[in-house]
């Protein structure tokens, strides 16, 4: 499907404009319970089974703040090099929308728990780009709507909507960057690298599932363009529904080329929310507001202010795990990686996977060879992230072990891995079901060797004359006869023994 929009060639966009980005990331915390009530915070439950008077907004129900969520918010703030507020409050953001049963969202307004931080992100070439963080604040997620009767599940044309409030009240942290300038042509790459770095950081902190496909990590991308001689930011659009790392990059790039085409044609950018379409890689206008937003924020009277003592903040700082960039530095030293090898490892998103494979018994070189060289290709072919492949580090370590013990050849090992990726079960089960065991039974191999020697008597004669190099032809024949399941080294030994 082609876009209905005029787009400018990307190189020309960069020649004429400077992009400015602002990224808002919402992350669902994986606490046991919701932000303001004791309902379970679990993804995928039967609709409206994790709800109570508080998260349904029943009259008189009062919120009680989840201490663990506050703790996670502070830890996220610290990991993002933010200052932590000495005193802050929640506020009510008032608006009517069916996915919000209370008719207001309990959020933080002008008093975020964390502010003024930064995150250094690694770009594809290994260089660092510093993204400044404006704020990280606490709020609650909304319910989920299902639009019925529309052609594509979207709201346009829907006859009515169905609401599931299991997600209403799930703790959310919204992380907002300051305007990101100076990226030039790398704007789409910086956007992706930032969300990737943030995801890795949140994962290391163990505060969220960070599953973009399940919505536990969501990114809204604000994009605007400044003409080269301009002194003020251009009008921005905010693109939502950007549900994968790749989509972040595509959405930013698309908006840049779309906006540039409008601007050079003398048009104006409409400040609006746009919706990213994965299938076309384009954005389309989303929510249109009849009136300007007027949320009438006011301090939430039912929740007390939060005043984290400096002792508590320092105690939480002490709980920060090794952060991704520290970890990268360490694995480079421990595994003796060159800068290029480290970059490949990081770009493949394989640091944790390789580390876990090493923990499961493989050497770093073996683990890297599988994850970076082989499985990255598999992930690309399947259009998924490396970490989304249906194989675990422990399973890869098992396969590596079987290769080392001679029970699998490299070729068979790849077949086993394919089987696991196809959902055929554990490596052992795949070997069994596909009959992939190396033929190590000498009598079976000897039989195949004898047959091959008998079939090629001239070659056999050469080997008997001491021309050992000729054995290759026999090895090939045996491998063919055993469908590649023989250990070539052992076959060669048997041939030489037979002919001496």
């Amino acid at each position: 499907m082609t876009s209905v929009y005029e787009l400018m060639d990307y190189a020309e966009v960069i020649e004429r404009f400077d992009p400015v980005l602002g990224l808002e990331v919402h992350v669902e915390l994986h606490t046991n319970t919701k932000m303001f009530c004791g309902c379970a915070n679990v993804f995928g439950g039967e609709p409206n089974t994790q709800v109570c008077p508080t998260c349904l907004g029943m009259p008189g129900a009062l919120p009680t703040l989840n201490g663990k969520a506050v703790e996670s918010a502070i830890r996220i703030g610290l990991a993002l090099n933010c200052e932590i507020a000495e005193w802050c409050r929640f506020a009510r953001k008032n608006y009517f929308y069916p996915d919000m049963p209370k008719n207001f969202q309990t959020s933080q307004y002008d008093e975020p728990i964390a502010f003024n931080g930064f995150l250094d992100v690694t770009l594809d070439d290994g260089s660092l780009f510093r993204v400044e963080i404006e704020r990280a604040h606490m709020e609650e997620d909304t319910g989920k709507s299902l639009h019925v009767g529309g052609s594509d599940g979207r709201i346009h044309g829907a006859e009515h909507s169905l609401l599931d409030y299991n997600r209403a009240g799930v703790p959310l942290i919204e992380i907002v960057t300051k305007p990101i300038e100076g990226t030039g042509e790398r704007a789409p790459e910086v956007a992706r690298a930032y969300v990737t770095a943030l995801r890795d950081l949140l994962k290391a902190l163990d505060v969220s599932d960070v599953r973009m496909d399940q919505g536990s990590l969501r990114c809204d991308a604000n994009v605007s363009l400044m003409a080269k001689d301009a002194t003020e930011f251009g009008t921005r659009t905010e693109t939502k529904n950007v549900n994968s790392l790749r989509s972040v990059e595509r959405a930013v790039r698309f908006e840049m080329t779309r906006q540039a085409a409008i601007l050079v044609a003398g048009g104006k950018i409409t400040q609006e929310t746009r919706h990213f379409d994965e299938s076309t890689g384009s954005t389309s206008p989303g929510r249109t507001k009849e009136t300007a937003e007027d949320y009438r924020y006011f301090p939430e009277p039912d929740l007390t202010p939060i005043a984290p003592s400096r002792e508590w903040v320092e105690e939480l700082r002490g709980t920060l795990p090794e952060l991704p960039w520290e970890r990268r530095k360490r694995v480079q030293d421990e595994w003796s990686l060159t800068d290029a090898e480290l970059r490949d490892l990081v770009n493949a998103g394989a640091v944790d996977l390789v580390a876990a494979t090493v923990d499961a018994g493989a050497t770093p070189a073996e683990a890297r060879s599988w994850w970076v060289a082989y499985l990255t290709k598999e992930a690309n072919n399947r259009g998924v992230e490396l970490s989304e492949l249906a194989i675990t580090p422990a399973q890869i370590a098992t396969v590596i072990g079987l290769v080392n013990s001679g029970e699998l050849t490299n070729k068979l090992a790849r077949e086993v891995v394919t089987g696991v990726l196809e959902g055929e079960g554990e490596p052992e089960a795949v070997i069994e079901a596909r009959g992939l065991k190396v033929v190590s039974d000498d009598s079976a191999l000897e039989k195949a060797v004898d047959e091959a020697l008998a079939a090629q008597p001239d070659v056999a004669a050469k080997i008997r004359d001491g021309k050992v190099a000729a054995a290759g032809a026999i090895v090939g024949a045996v491998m063919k006869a055993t469908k590649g399941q023989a250990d070539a080294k052992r076959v060669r030994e048997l041939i030489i023994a037979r002919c001496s």
Partner: protein
Amino acid sequence: MPSISRDEVAHLARLARLAVTDDELDLFAGQLDVILQSVATVGDIATADIPPTSHAVPLTNVFREDVVRPSLGQQQALAGAPAAEDGRFRVPRILGEEA
């Protein structure tokens, strides 16, 4: 000069999804003005060293343990709903806005 205009009352009524007639707008604008003027007298004694009060009781950091408590069942949750379908609350179509 009144501290709240008729237009502002109309705007607030719209935000609150309240249907207010023209006559009511005049009536409420007048009444709200009296209330706001009365409340504004607090401003006469508030000085720079008195911070605005949002909470009457000086408490901070009241937290709940992150322990799951029983939820309502689906049936109970939907019991008061004007309409339900497939275990979900059913609402009329949402016009002109994008979820």
